[in-house]
């Protein structure tokens, strides 16, 4: 069975540009997470969904970041007007319910110059 799939694997932007990341979770997983992982740090939760509903987006910089999961399957994370401080790896993960094993994708490494 395929794991969590993310695309693209790499992205390089100039400040002010927009970018979208796409995630396909493990089939049947109702919970989907987006994490930001700056270099040499642990992942930090941005937002998570249960089916199509946003459960917690309190860590998502709402002025420039948005995330959707319209049919409760795939998800898109978008950054409008990227800043150098957004340079990080963006990880998508999924699980069946909460407090169970969370499966991560390989991530998208974003560099903003």
């Amino acid at each position, binding site marked *: 069975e395929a794991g969590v799939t993310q695309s693209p694997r790499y992205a390089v932007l100039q400040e002010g540009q927009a970018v979208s990341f796409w995630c396909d979770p493990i089939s049947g997983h109702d919970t989907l997470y987006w994490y930001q992982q700056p270099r*040499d*740090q*642990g*992942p*930090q939760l941005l937002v998570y969904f249960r089916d199509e509903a946003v*459960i917690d987006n309190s860590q998502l910089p709402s002025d420039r970041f948005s995330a959707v999961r319209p049919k409760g399957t795939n998800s898109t994370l978008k950054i409008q007007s990227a800043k150098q401080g957004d340079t990080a790896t963006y*990880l998508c993960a999924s699980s069946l319910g909460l407090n169970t094993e969370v499966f*991560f*994708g390989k991530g998208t490494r974003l560099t903003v110059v």
Partner: protein
Amino acid sequence: SQLAEENLWALSVHEGESVTVNCSYKTSITALQWYRQKSGEGPAQLILIRSNEREKRNGRLRATLDTSSQSSSLSITATRCEDTAVYFCATVASSGSWQLIFGSGTQLTVMP
């Protein structure tokens, strides 16, 4: 500030040796998870230990949890070069919105 923190940035051992990574945390938890992240990959869960458990094993891995001192350890026996990775502990708080809080990780290098 980090709510979960591994105690060392980096460790190096030779193949076959045993190694322990320690973690401390600052909040009441329902569970603690240990993850391994190899270069270019996402984290992979190794062990989930719940707050009412004191020890959990998975092959060569052994995790302990001490809720009184708010600390955990992950021991790896008979290390292999492929164990080279960053090891994270991640906590699940017992109150508030569910989320995994990761520490900053310990880089383990296993040398031939």
